[in-house]
């Protein structure tokens, strides 16, 4: 008589393993889809900002654009980058952190790639926050 040895995990363990695999895969897909990898279930509130007023100083001694930025959203705004006429401002981006309802002055001292602002020219300034909050406004002397 030939006796066959059938070795392996039980069906119960196999089912459990399959379930663990399926649930893990589900969670990974869910996290990936919702963009919550690294910040699982955390708030992703988009902010909102507006410009109160601006002034463009293009005298011989100074070249800068001062703008008062207001946080009109629900989340804190933190400036990450500035674009002028579609090109990123090189050098150090000024620090600007606005709590809810706060207004602060933002000074931009260079136009594009280290060049100064000039008069009679319209510049389109775009501010982008760390949470991808964006604001575009035009300035002209």
């Amino acid at each position, binding site marked *: 008589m030939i006796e066959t040895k059938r070795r392996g995990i039980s069906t119960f363990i196999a089912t459990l393993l399959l379930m663990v695999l399926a*649930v893990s895969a589900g969670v990974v897909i*869910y996290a990936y889809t919702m963009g919550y990898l690294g910040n699982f279930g955390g708030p992703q509130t988009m902010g909102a900002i507006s410009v109160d*007023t601006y002034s463009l100083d293009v005298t011989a001694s100074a070249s800068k654009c001062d703008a*008062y930025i207001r946080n*009109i959203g*629900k989340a804190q705004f933190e400036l990450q980058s500035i674009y002028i006429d579609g090109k990123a401002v090189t050098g150090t981006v000024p620090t600007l952190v606005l709590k809810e309802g706060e207004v602060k002055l933002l000074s931009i001292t260079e136009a594009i790639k280290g060049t100064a602002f000039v008069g009679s020219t319209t510049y389109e300034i775009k501010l982008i926050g760390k949470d991808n909050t964006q604001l575009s406004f035009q300035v002209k002397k």
Partner: protein
Amino acid sequence: MKARKGVSEIISSLIVLMIVSVMGVMLYEITLDSLSTQQSDLLFEVNREINTAMERFKIVSITRTSQDQMNVTYINYGDVEFKITDIYIENVRYQVENPVEARKFVLNSIIPEDFILGSGEEILYNVKIVSERGVSNELQVLL
């Protein structure tokens, strides 16, 4: 004789059922929490947009007070109440201390405390008032 060891089918079914239920509840909670947060943010955003669109005000007069200060009077002719929080004179910010709720068709005045008008010849001032929602109105005046 073959020895059959292990949990019974009923017990195993119960365990599986329990695991699935716990997982289901967890997923439900996470989804519900995420959705309610998103819904609340969306509602806030929609309300903000609506209120901003309905907010209308206008500077009706700018006068000099006896203390050589500027008195800015404005009227709310929109459908929502608001607060003027900032006044900009020649692009310099003056915060409004204790801003009041501007009711419909009621005149309100602001005196920027730190601003003193120049004496002598009249100067053209660009005055801009801004509400807490970021809505603004400006006027140029000779004072």
